Structures are given as structure tokens and as C-alpha cells.
């Protein structure tokens, strides 16, 4: 702990730790919906589009972050529309956005000549370089994201897990999708300049991936992911100080280790839970679903599956 005092003696470390908490909290709160939609790499894709946005901003002399935000939001909306009306599935559309973003950036950069060098500034960063102004941005971001998560989380989850039903039941699906997209874009664009694209996009997904292994409900997964996000971010920053490694990479490696441990551990946990459940259950019949999923490829269902359901519904009288 003497060491911890030493760490806290550096302002930049204190700021890095605060940034770790804020970003570690906000990123998974957005990411859980992306995982739900099976578009885990969308954050990365948005980062690539931001490259084009920054290059455009530099070329036209506009504020690069502003232009990057506008461009990413437009690209993300285009992605939504393609996903909805095109014959291409989400991953393909994501790939188009991904490669389009990079190639656009590359070609613009080549055209932009001298401004190009400035580009990287907007894409890469290090959590240890967080400034007090950055911290304020992160704080606002965290508040906005958490507020959206609390207020609209269930709606966002509903749209992410069954868009068709959400639309049929009168939820404003397009609005919610765009909101999620904008939240993602804002989170990525604002954070990546400071903490780097690797870190922000990994922090959106990996805590969720780990939490997923241990939880069975959406709500619990979200809470656990946020806790894991904060925990690993803090641990990562501290470790990178002691082990003399880059902070971003260290946090990400922690997240991956966490995922691997969780994936392995969940079998054990589920076994225990199962035993407990068996204890509770009068008949000793298996109650909790356990064990790994079957090999089902989890591909998308075709437009119409085919089934009928017994329906009944007294509880629904009005």
C-alpha cells in the first residue's frame, strides 16, 4: 500500500484511475446491447469510420471530433438501413462499414497530404494521458449512458433481442436503434481519442462476454459486466504501473483472462447451482439449465420458422 500511495502521488495516475472507473462503467452499459444484437464488433467498426470523419474534418477545416461524430452517426444509420432493408446480414454490413471506413480514411489521408499526420491523434490515445477536461467529458458520458441504460434499457434490450416483435408491439424501433447507435458512436468517438480504440471497443464487449458466462438474466449480465469493467480497468491501470506495461493492452488482457476463466468456471458454477437447485427442488429433478450449449450453430432463423403454439391467456383480461 505504500506503493499505492506512490501511485496516487502522480496526478496522471489518479486521473487514469478515475477515467478507468468512468469508462469501465459506461462502455459495458452500451456494449451489452451490442452483444445482444450480435454486433460485437460494431464499436470497432465505428472507430474505423471515425477515421474517415476525422480526415474529412481536417480536409474541410472543421472540428474533427464533430465531423467524426456526424460521419459515424450517419454511417451507423446507413448500417441500420442496410441491415433492415438490404439482403445482407448484420455482420456483412458491419464488414462493409469497417472496410469502407478504413479505405475511406486511407484514401482521404493520401489526398489530404499534410493534415494526415494529425489524424492519428484522434484515433489513438493512452489512458494515462487523460486530462481533467477529458475527465469531465467522461463523467458526462457516463451519466448519459447510465441514464439511458436505466430509463430505456428494457426497451433497448427488447429491440435488440427481438426487433420484429418490438416493432409489432408499437415500440419506436427505429428511434431506439438510432439512439443505441448514437450512444455507441458517441462513446467510441469521445473515448478513443483519450483511451484508444482498442481499449474502448474491447471494454464495450469483453466484460459482457465474461458476465454472460456467469449470469442467466439480461439484467444480471448487465450489472456484472459493469462491475467487471470497472474492476479490470482499475486493476489494469495499477498492474501496468507495477509491471511496466502499456495500460490499454494490460486492461484488455485482463478482460480476456477474465473471459477465459469465466468460460471455464461457469461449468463449475453451473454444476454447483444445479446441485443447490436440486436441493431446493422437492423432487430432486433437475431445475436449472446447466452445462455448455449444445452444438447448435446458432445461425439466424429463416424469415419464417415454422411452428404453432398452444395459446391461452386468462391473465390478460382487461
Amino acid at each position, binding site marked *: 500500500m505504500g506503493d499505492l500511495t506512490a501511485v496516487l502521488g502522480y496526478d496522471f495516475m489518479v486521473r487514469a484511475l478515475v477515467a478507468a472507473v468512468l469508462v469501465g462503467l459506461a462502455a459495458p452499459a452500451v456494449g451489452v446491447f451490442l452483444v445482444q444484437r450480435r454486433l460485437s464488433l460494431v464499436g470497432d467498426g465505428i472507430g474505423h469510420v471515425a477515421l474517415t470523419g476525422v480526415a474529412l474534418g481536417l480536409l474541410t477545416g472543421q472540428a474533427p471530433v464533430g465531423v467524426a461524430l456526424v460521419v459515424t452517426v450517419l454511417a451507423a444509420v446507413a448500417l441500420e438501413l442496410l441491415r433492415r432493408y438490404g439482403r445482407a446480414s448484420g455482420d456483412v454490413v458491419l464488414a462493409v462499414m469497417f472496410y469502407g471506413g478504413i479505405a475511406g480514411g486511407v484514401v482521404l489521408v493520401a489526398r489530404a497530404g499534410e493534415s494526415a499526420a494529425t489524424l492519428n491523434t484522434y484515433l489513438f490515445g493512452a489512458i494515462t494521458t487523460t486530462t481533467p477536461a477529458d475527465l469531465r467529458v467522461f463523467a458526462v458520458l457516463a451519466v448519459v449512458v447510465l441514464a439511458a441504460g436505466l430509463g430505456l434499457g428494457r426497451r433497448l434490450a427488447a429491440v435488440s433481442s427481438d426487433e420484429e416483435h418490438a416493432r409489432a408491439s408499437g415500440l419506436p424501433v427505429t428511434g431506439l436503434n438510432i439512439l443505441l447507435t448514437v450512444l455507441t458512436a458517441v462513446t467510441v468517438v469521445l473515448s478513443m481519442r483519450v483511451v484508444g480504440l482498442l481499449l474502448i471497443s474491447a471494454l464495450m464487449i469483453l466484460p459482457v462476454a465474461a458476465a454472460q458466462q456467469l449470469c*442467466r*438474466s439480461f439484467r444480471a449480465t448487465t450489472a456484472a459486466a459493469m462491475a467487471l469493467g470497472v474492476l479490470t480497468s482499475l486493476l489494469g491501470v495499477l498492474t501496468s504501473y507495477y509491471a511496466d506495461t502499456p495500460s490499454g493492452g494490460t486492461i484488455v488482457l485482463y478482460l480476456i483472462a477474465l473471459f477465459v476463466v469465466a468460460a471455464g468456471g461457469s461449468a463449475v458454477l453451473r454444476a454447483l447451482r444445479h446441485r443447490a437447485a436440486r436441493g431446493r427442488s422437492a423432487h430432486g429433478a433437475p431445475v436449472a439449465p446447466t452445462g455448455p450449449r449444445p452444438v447448435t450453430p446458432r445461425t439466424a*432463423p429463416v424469415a419464417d420458422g415454422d411452428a404453432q403454439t398452444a395459446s391461452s391467456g386468462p391473465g390478460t383480461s382487461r
Partner: protein
Amino acid sequence: MSGSPARAHDAPLLRLVGASFGYGERVVVDGVDLEVRAGESVALLGSNGSGKTTLLRGVLGLAARTGGRVEMGGEPAPSRRSRRRTGYVPQAMTVGGGVPSTVREVVATGRLPLRPWWRPAGRADAAAVRAALEAVDMASHAHEDVTELSGGQQRRVLVARALAAEPELLVLDEPLAGVDAANARLLADALGRLSARGVTLLVVTHEIGPLADVVRRAVVLRQGRVVHDGPLVPELLGAEAVGDADAATGAARLLHDHHVHHHDEDEPSPRGWVDHPDTRPGPGGLAHHPEEHDDERPGAAAAGGQRRG
């Protein structure tokens, strides 16, 4: 419209006027006129590919309307309002995603459109979810991951989600497929009670059996057009009614190719179904309707698979 609504109302709850729906350039449902009054229970029948699902999806705005009008309660539909008054059970299990969701969470999404976004779930929501879960007998599975349920259990979850919204109009796309007989009866009974309370039902099904007591009126689609609209008379329960011409043709080819005659039926007469009006199940109720058997008779197809209503 010859429906026999459980309760008579004056304005139809749902009205389609020359409505066409399709995918892209393709028109699947073509110029359908349909009125469903509040409190009515209507079965939508037709062979595979006849456009039943497309019609339901069109009414909900999930398939593109390419012509005509849809109204709900006199207002143009689909609107956000019309959707909130409608509960929908899709034909396929559509709930999915990368993050586990419990049965309760899925059913609770049915409540979302009913409250403003800033209001958290209240006691009424919890009660409605619980009631819906009990109606499909899934309460004991409330905290399990939906993706780890059996097929029939998943279907029941979808029904519960629709019920949780306490809709005025309940639209069910093959709600009985894959559900065991006991639960099928349970669900049918529940639908019956809903209907008795004035909820309007529009049910797509290939198994009218368990619903025979609930549904009073049948609409039959063939190739995207309404070919019958009237009381659910016995003959409609026969296969001919819901078979399609293709099927019959296929059967003919089949029989021909293999030189095997159907072992327990006579060679169908060209208009077979017309010849067996008497096969309507008696009070036994659960017997399989013999008419179920005759439809793909080759010639029958030619006869257009049409039946009297």
C-alpha cells in the same frame, strides 16, 4: 361478412379493404377484404405458402402494404396506437441474442409499450407478467434462460409475451404448433376465456381441433386471396379446405410415380371433399377429422381445393 362475433359491436375492430401485402416487388396477399368485429374469434386458414403469415404481418406493419387499406377501430393502421392494442405471437421463435434472457424478462417486454419510457415496471406490470406466465404454465420456468427451453416451452413463452400486453386484438400465428396436447387444451381454454371477456382473436392454425370451441368464423386464403369467409362449418376442418392445389398435384405425381395407392382411402374423387360433408367430428370432439385426409387428392386440386362454407 358472415362472422358470428361473441359480442356484437357496431364498428369493426379490424378492417381490410382491398389490402395487398408482399415482400419487395412480390405481392403475396392480394386484395383482401376483411372485417373483424370486436370480440369476434376468427381462424385464418390456408395451405402452406398461401399468405396467412404475410397477412398478419401486413396488418402489424411487418410486411409491406402494396395496396388497399387497413383500419383499426376506424383509424388507419398500422399506427403505433393500433400496434399497442394488438398482441402478436409470431410463427417462429424470434427471441434471441447474445446475452441470456430469462423467461420472465422476455414476457415482461410485452408490457413495455403500455407505459411511458420513464416509468419503471410497476405492480400492475408484475401482476400481468405473472398471470401471463401462469396462463401458459411457464411460471415455474420464469427464471430460466429462454434459449435453454424445449421447443414447445419456447412457443408458450411467446404466447405469454403477447398475453402480458393485455391486448384488445390478439393475433396468433400457429400458436399450437409443437405444444403438447395438454397445454394445447389449456391454451385453448384460456383463449376461450379471453374471447368471452371481449378480446378479439385472429388465429392462424393448421390444427383447428383444440380451438374448435373458441373459433366461430373461418377465413380461408388461397394464393393470397380470400376464398372462404364464413362460419367455421364442419367441412372447413377437412384437409381440402386448407390444402393447396400444388399439394394435390404433388400427391398425384407421387401416387403416379410409385404406383402405390393410398392404403386406407379410396382413390379420391375429383371433388373429394365435396363428397364427404358428413365427416365432421361428432361430440367426441377430439377425434381427428377424417376430412383432414382427403385434400391432397390429386383431382381435388383441380377442383380447386375450394370448399363450401
